[in-house]
């Protein structure tokens, strides 16, 4: 991350807040600090006029049935029947980072934010080419979305301290060695200076 930090034109950027749901938050420690940082990022984005988009994992009964057993990660999840139901409290977006009118919210049934959602189309309709990423977990939704979004030609900015993983070793390695191949990795504190509002 020795490169110069990018300027982000707020008109063409979106903040993606991914899987900030009790189902995943409860797997972590120190979540109050994480949630307050995420809330701060959202406040910064709103203040600068950057679009905020949310992704959340949740299943209808038909969605569960449509996951084949060979999908390893969801086969394991599906064994905990009901845990990720669309109307379960565990799948609601945490109230501390709640969406507001005008935000985009996509419900997904796989790991990445683009898989089987209309997020890509929605972003392109708004000529958004830069994504600022926050999510739980780093080795789950963040990793899949970074890989996919990079190949979709988005400029990517990962907010290291607005992403979290149960395994600190994985968090560290992804942020320092894997994501930098495809994204700029910065901290929440660095974001305000990079957001440039067009005059």
């Amino acid at each position, binding site marked *: 991350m020795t490169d110069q930090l990018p300027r982000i034109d707020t008109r063409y950027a979106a903040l993606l807040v991914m899987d900030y749901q009790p189902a995943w938050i409860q797997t972590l420690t120190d979540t109050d600090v994480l949630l307050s940082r995420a809330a701060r990022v959202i406040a910064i984005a709103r203040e600068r006029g950057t679009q905020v988009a949310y992704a959340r994992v949740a299943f209808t009964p038909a969605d569960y049935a449509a*996951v*084949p057993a*060979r*999908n*390893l*990660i969801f086969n394991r999840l599906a064994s905990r029947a009901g845990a990720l139901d669309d109307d379960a409290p565990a799948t609601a977006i945490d109230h501390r980072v709640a969406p507001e009118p005008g935000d985009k919210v996509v419900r997904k049934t*796989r*790991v*990445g934010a683009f*898989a*089987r959602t209309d997020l890509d189309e929605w972003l392109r309709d708004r000529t958004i*080419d*830069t994504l600022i990423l926050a999510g739980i977990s780093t*080795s*789950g939704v963040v*990793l*899949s979305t970074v*890989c*996919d979004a*990079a*190949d*979709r*030609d*988005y*400029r*990517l900015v990962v907010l290291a301290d607005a992403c979290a993983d149960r*395994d600190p*070793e*994985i968090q560290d*390695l*992804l942020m320092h*060695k*894997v994501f930098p*191949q*495809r*994204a*700029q990795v910065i901290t929440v504190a660095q974001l305000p200076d990079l957001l440039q509002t067009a005059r």
Partner: protein
Amino acid sequence: MAEQPPLIDPRRAALLVMDYQAGIVDSLPGVDALLSRVAAAIAIAREHEVQIAYVRVAFTAADYAAIPATNRSFSRMAGRAGAMAADAPQTAVHSRLAPQAGDIVVRKTRVGAFATTNLDARLRDQQIDTLLLAGFATSGVVLSTVRDAADRDYRLIVLSDACADRDPEVHELLMEKVFPRQAYVIAISNLPELLRPAR
């Protein structure tokens, strides 16, 4: 992962051999041993009549021109125009692993094997739902393909010793902690016993 890998029906499986191109791997330390292992994996797959699919990265002039500055990995590469030209010998599948009649060969212009190719459609046309993965680099094409293929509901088996990365620590951590959530990670030597036709 404690989980045993499942038996693999060879008729429903494909071995993906990804980015094994002279221009990419020839400068690697230990490349001879690596290529020998990949050749062994290909020989096992052929013996069991598993479909082989090669993925190579290479660009035409129009492909280079179509890479936007927002794409971090590839906009850097566009500066070295010609290095990965589609018709350069350096971008052909490595001569030691050469494709044979009946193999699938796709050319891509991004990181993952599915982005910018018709590989998914070609595999589905043959009712293939299980992928055996071999590729360089582990944190490049292998990682992006694992993340994407998992969300496309393929059963995934990563052949750990048929993949490599310039950074051994990254290779090891991905194999031990990241891939096992979505894939079975096995050694090439474990492959023959798993390949059994369904009755």
